[in-house]
């Protein structure tokens, strides 16, 4: 008679892909309904959104450059978060770690930018950002390991501590505050010297590929190799799967957690360094919410390194595309992207259920079967 839910043992890849694809399509469908309701042609809107408005656009190269500026920090932040998530360490402090990284990167750029050669400055920016973010994450991991402090809630709190530190530095005129332009009366962020910007590679036409884009793919490859091939990656997998087994095998689980969370936060710091090294000015909205969105991306990608790139590309497209489209379709606010992202994730979570569980019918009659 009745229906009930049982766990599914294994779901083939093609079936999973189908479920996710259907989820995304249904989400776009719901979006269409809303667009129709306010009198916008969804096909026209989506076309504009997903092409980032580059069709018939003379300065399309600028669009691509700006799009990649969004994509790189998001992908790198998600990669970093995925490392911690693999160990079931709920680091939702990406936002705070990103800010700490950005502050350190900016300090390095402003203080050293004009004194050292560009390569050295860029290296220092990255190292400073990674150290700052890494330590901010390590603090939580240490408390978790030592006292069992709830890392979800603690990283959440520390996000806001970082946010207000950033706001303070961006809003307080003082002699010591090198983050602000000393020549302005109002608090205006200091522009970084040109030597602290990442170089670009001309790709023909006016499009120039920022070296960060290449670096982020190289890092992705390294992380993939790290997780799949190295001893440390193996340890992360074992600890994430069964911490009892890891201890039993003689692994120093506390050290592995500390190391991995540090590493995870370092990557988020590096994302901040890349962001600072491409935009060149600090601001209170420097994170563009990548700490939050990164969590969603990592989860949507099921912590799979390459899928993270694909999902980051899609989500960046939603956000950037909606800003572009908002210029043409005045009725549609760019917050439409946030709604759409919500629909997609809700539906993917629902699809996930279909993958993890099966609904079966309780048989009653065939006793002798």
């Amino acid at each position, binding site marked *: 008679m009745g229906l009930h839910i049982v766990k599914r043992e294994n779901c083939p890849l093609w079936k999973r892909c189908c479920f996710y694809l259907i989820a995304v399509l249904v989400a776009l469908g719901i979006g269409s309904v809303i667009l129709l309701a306010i009198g916008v042609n969804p096909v026209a809107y989506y076309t504009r959104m997903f092409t980032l408005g580059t069709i018939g656009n003379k300065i399309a190269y600028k669009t691509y450059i700006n799009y990649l500026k969004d994509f790189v920090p998001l992908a790198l932040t998600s990669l970093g978060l995925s490392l911690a998530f693999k160990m079931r360490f709920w680091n939702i402090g990406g936002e705070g770690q990103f800010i700490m990284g950005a502050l350190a990167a900016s300090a390095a750029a402003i203080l050293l930018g004009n004194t050292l050669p560009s390569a050295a400055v860029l290296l220092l920016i990255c190292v400073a950002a990674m150290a700052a973010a890494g330590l901010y994450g390590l603090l939580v991991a240490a408390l978790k390991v030592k006292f069992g402090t709830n890392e979800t809630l603690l990283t959440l709190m520390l996000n806001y501590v970082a946010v207000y530190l950033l706001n303070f530095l961006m809003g307080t005129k003082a002699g010591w505050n090198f983050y602000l332009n000393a020549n302005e009366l109002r608090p205006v962020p200091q522009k970084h010297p040109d030597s602290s910007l990442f170089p670009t590679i001309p790709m023909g036409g006016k499009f120039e590929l920022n070296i960060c884009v290449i670096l982020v793919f190289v890092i992705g490859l390294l992380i993939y190799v790290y997780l799949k091939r190295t*001893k440390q990656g*193996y340890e992360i997998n074992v600890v994430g799967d069964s911490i009892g087994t890891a201890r*039993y*095998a*003689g*692994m120093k689980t506390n050290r592995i957690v500390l190391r991995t969370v540090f590493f995870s936060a370092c990557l988020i710091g590096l994302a901040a360094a890349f962001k600072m090294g491409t935009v060149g000015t600090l601001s209170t909205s420097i994170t563009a919410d990548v700490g939050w969105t990164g969590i969603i991306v990592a989860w949507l990608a099921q912590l799979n390194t390459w899928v993270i790139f694909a999902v980051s590309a899609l989500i960046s497209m939603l956000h950037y595309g909606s800003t572009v489209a908002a210029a043409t379709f005045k009725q549609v606010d760019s917050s439409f992207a946030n709604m759409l992202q919500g629909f997609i994730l809700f539906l993917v979570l629902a699809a996930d259920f279909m993958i993890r569980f099966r609904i079966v019918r309780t048989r*009653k009659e065939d006793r002798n079967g």
Partner: protein
Amino acid sequence: MSERYAIEMRGITKAFGSVVANSNVELNVKQGEILALLGENGSGKTTLMNMLSGIYKPDSGSILVDGREAVINSPEDAKKLGIGMVHQHFKLVDVFSAADNIWMGKERAGLVLKKDRYAQIREISRKFGFEIDPKKKVYNMSVSEKQTLEIIKVLYYGAKTIILDEPTAVLTVQEIQKLFAVLRKMKEEGHSIIIITHKLNEVMEISDRVAILRKGAYITTVETAQTNEQALTEWMVGRPIDLNIDRPVMETTRPLLEVRDLTIRSDEGSVAIDGVNFYIRGGEILGVAGIAGCGQKELCEAIAGLRPIEKGQMIHKGDNIVGLSPKKILEKGISMSFIPEDRLGMGLAPSLSITDNMILKNYADTKGPFVNRKLGRADAEQVIRELEVVTPSTETPVRRLSGGNVQKVLLGREIKAGPNVIVTAYPVRGLDINSSFTIYNILNQQKQAGVGILFVGEDMDVMMALCDKIMVLCHGKVMGVVHAHKTTKEELGLMMTGALDLSNKYEDKPAGIAKDSRFGEAEQGEEA
């Protein structure tokens, strides 16, 4: 007209993924009787009862309560039908008082919690013949207090049929007798009782009828008065009591592992192992027998370096291993494999492949930062071939293997590492006969190779056939070490319940201390 039963279960089948836990099981309970549900571990007793109490839903089959077909979709339904279950792992809210644990399931409890609920609960408990403190918090209760609370709870909800899952496993002898008195009284009052157990003496003592399950299948139901332990065992294990397990006779060596005066605390802080002495020689299998939860787990963990010890010494080949890291202990050649109830908790990483599980303990031994999976794959292939592991490939996640194959993978890895001491707990739990014999053979081969083996088991017949000596634990204390071929099940049973203490049988030499001990060598710095 056929006899009317309080509960009838017909053709019940239940599978978890590919594992069939119950297959076409029949069970019936008369009003006012005690039915023992007998079967080995993993025979599907608890699963079957969980379907009666609404935790699981059967894949097929039907349940009749008082002759009427019943649909039990949830514990709520079971409660309404007058079925109550005392689970082996108590279902209590730790931070609540005894009274609130009962009150939370009370129907028509009204809106406001009144202070008089404590008095009400105390009174009702007295009526049932129990004395409890209604205000006592569960986290301050002893195991038997918690069990009492669980029983009061189901009685309070008006259960006519009461299921008890292995209620004696955690109790002392006196507490067991008290429990049985309670059960008899409940029976007289007209309750039907189902008691899950795998202990024959208890079946004979308390039950009116016995239903037997073997490997998820229903075997038979018999009147207790018309049967005996011999017959029950045959139904339960499906083979004559003579197990025909080989016990090769070996030249034993000097003690490999010696434990003196060892005291260990459990997670809850109570003393789990209390001043225990024993030693293992090379070429012998020392069995550890005892009621579940008598410190076996803690002992295994302490030897493997996973649990700090309170006091005492552990000497391996003359070297002190107390305080060493799990890694260092592994390097000394001490292998521990502990298979808890869920089978995958310690020793294997369930989502990882067989290959990845093979390299669990030696992945760090190769040079460089990379994992060498080639060696792991070769090891996996060898174990699969030699131990006949049934698996699609070496890259299959361990969680998708059946229980016997999981055990083979685990033991296969341990043996490949070439240990000199093997500590293994419940290695045949839930396995079929053939798989079990494969495991016994592996252990015997290791014994013949001069390895010292500590075998924590639960089946007395197996232990008497396989082990050379058996150490019996009761509440963390050693009740004695006996020669397996000289002892009897009765003697072991008495020792397990604490009724017989043979630890000082030989006045000149307390049990568990070797004549040719290597104690003291550590201080003199001889031998590594």
